[in-house]
């Protein structure tokens, strides 16, 4: 019974926690500029994320170690220093973008400039991290995040042509602006497969003391939860394609993007968009901060855990506090949160091979996962998508920047 409850809660929280600044901004931009054409990118990225999340849970359940701890132990500090630094820098940018996303959401509700909200949001995030254990943080974020299902409701109400949707699940070449199309494909991949999610999930599995007997729960939660979560992202793309695209509105700011809810929700549109954006980004901000604490503590062998009294894991607590403080400082400068998001998610794809490839090695090492190693098809799919994504990102990011 407990396993079924874990499964249901796991799936619900995966759905509620799926959408945040990166997925909303990339899906909205893709929909407004290319219609349904980039739905395949969300589908591919979602499958990739589900596979990686399942693997990170499997690693934790079998070895009792999180991803960061296992990478340090298996590859040593010489190697680990590179992905560790890269991930922390990207996480810092992403965290600043998420805080900015919440601040914009509050601005949409109150009309008061977003920079005024950065510090209160940082304090609110820290209070959540200070006060609650892992379960409350994860389930609270996930359950509140169910408001993001409004993207699916909006898309449903607009009655998209199902045959066009199905056709868009197969990659196709755009009729215009190839560089932008490639950039958005890469950004969708980076927004969906955020590296922090992998270590966060494996750390959560260690905190919740997942065992080998629960591997089926892990598998079902990862695949069902993440795939349903992907549907929420697709809802954002479809709504944007049907509302913003035909009217020539570009999703180049959150204020513009919010207009996608108007046909479906009328007077409630802006408030509902603000709640979806705000709660989605706040949840992600809390998880990224907590993960920063996990990464430092696991890499250096400190006491860690959101379920421990904070004074008993003082360096872990200090690490997530300092990272949250640093990200709030970046956000308060006033950089456009949407632009910051797009830069962070595109750069994520560049560093992805450093995170995913060693992880694949771990998942094929019987010292860590015993007989539960990954299959050749999964290994090949993940390695190929990671490398192709990174190569494409290295080419299109400079072109996108040069093209303005």
């Amino acid at each position: 019974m407990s396993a079924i409850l874990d499964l249901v809660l796991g799936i619900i929280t995966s759905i509620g926690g799926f959408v945040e600044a990166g997925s909303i901004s990339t899906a909205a931009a893709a929909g407004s500029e290319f219609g349904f054409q980039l739905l395949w990118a969300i589908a591919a990225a979602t499958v990739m994320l589900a596979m990686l999340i399942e693997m990170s849970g499997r690693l934790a359940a079998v070895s009792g170690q999180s991803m960061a701890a296992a990478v340090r132990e298996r590859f040593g500090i010489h190697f680990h220093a590179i992905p560790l630094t890269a991930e922390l820098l990207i996480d810092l940018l992403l965290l600043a973008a998420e805080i900015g996303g919440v601040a914009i959401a509050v601005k949409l509700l109150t009309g008061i400039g977003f920079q005024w909200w950065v510090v209160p949001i940082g304090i609110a995030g820290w209070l959540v991290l200070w006060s609650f254990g892992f379960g409350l943080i994860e389930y609270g974020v996930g359950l509140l995040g169910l408001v993001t299902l409004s993207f699916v409701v909006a898309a449903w109400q607009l009655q998209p042509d199902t045959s066009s949707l199905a056709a868009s699940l197969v990659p196709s070449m755009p009729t215009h602006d190839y560089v932008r199309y490639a950039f958005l494909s890469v950004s969708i991949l980076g927004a969906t497969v955020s590296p922090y999610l992998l270590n966060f999930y494996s750390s959560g599995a260690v905190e919740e003391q997942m065992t080998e007997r629960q591997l089926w729960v892990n598998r079902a939660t990862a695949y069902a939860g993440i795939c349903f979560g992907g549907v929420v992202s697709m809802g954002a793309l479809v709504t944007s394609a049907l509302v913003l695209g035909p009217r020539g509105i570009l999703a180049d700011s959150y204020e513009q993007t919010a207009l996608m809810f108007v046909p479906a929700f009328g007077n409630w549109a802006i408030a509902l968009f603000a709640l979806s954006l705000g709660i989605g980004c706040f949840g992600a901000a809390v998880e990224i901060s907590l993960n920063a604490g996990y990464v430092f503590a696991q890499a250096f062998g400190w006491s860690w855990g959101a379920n421990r009294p904070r004074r008993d894991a003082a360096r872990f607590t200090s690490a997530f506090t300092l990272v949250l403080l640093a990200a709030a400082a970046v956000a308060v400068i006033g950089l456009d949160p949407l632009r910051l998001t797009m830069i962070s998610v595109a750069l994520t794809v560049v560093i992805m091979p450093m995170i995913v490839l060693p992880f694949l090695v771990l998942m094929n090492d019987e010292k860590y996962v015993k007989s539960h190693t990954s299959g050749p098809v999964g290994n090949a799919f993940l390695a190929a998508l990671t490398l192709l994504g990174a190569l494409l990102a290295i080419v299109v990011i400079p072109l996108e920047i040069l093209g303005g």
Partner: protein
Amino acid sequence: MDLVRDLLDKRVVDRNGRDMGRVDAVILELRGGASPRVAAIEIGPAVLASRVHPTLGRWVAALEHAFAVDDGRPTRIAVGGILDITDRVKVDCAFGETPASSVERRLRAWIGAIPGSS
């Protein structure tokens, strides 16, 4: 035993199972013509950083000195103090009594003053 695979970078816990850090360095003793022998393990950010690059190691050591947490660091544990090596290295000491805990203790004093920390 393969020192790099089975000892270096492994998690270290004290005799009570409390996390102390990781094996940041392995000290080998050279014995004339005989093969080297493991003399001790070390725990500490400066020695870890020096493995990445000696300059980085010096910077971290200077930082430890500036914050007055460098006394007795890195923490060296003689090979005789190792109780067992499994998925972690268990050593015969109490974390709180070693220099490895100096940063944790200082931060704990500050954090402990905030309501709700325990």
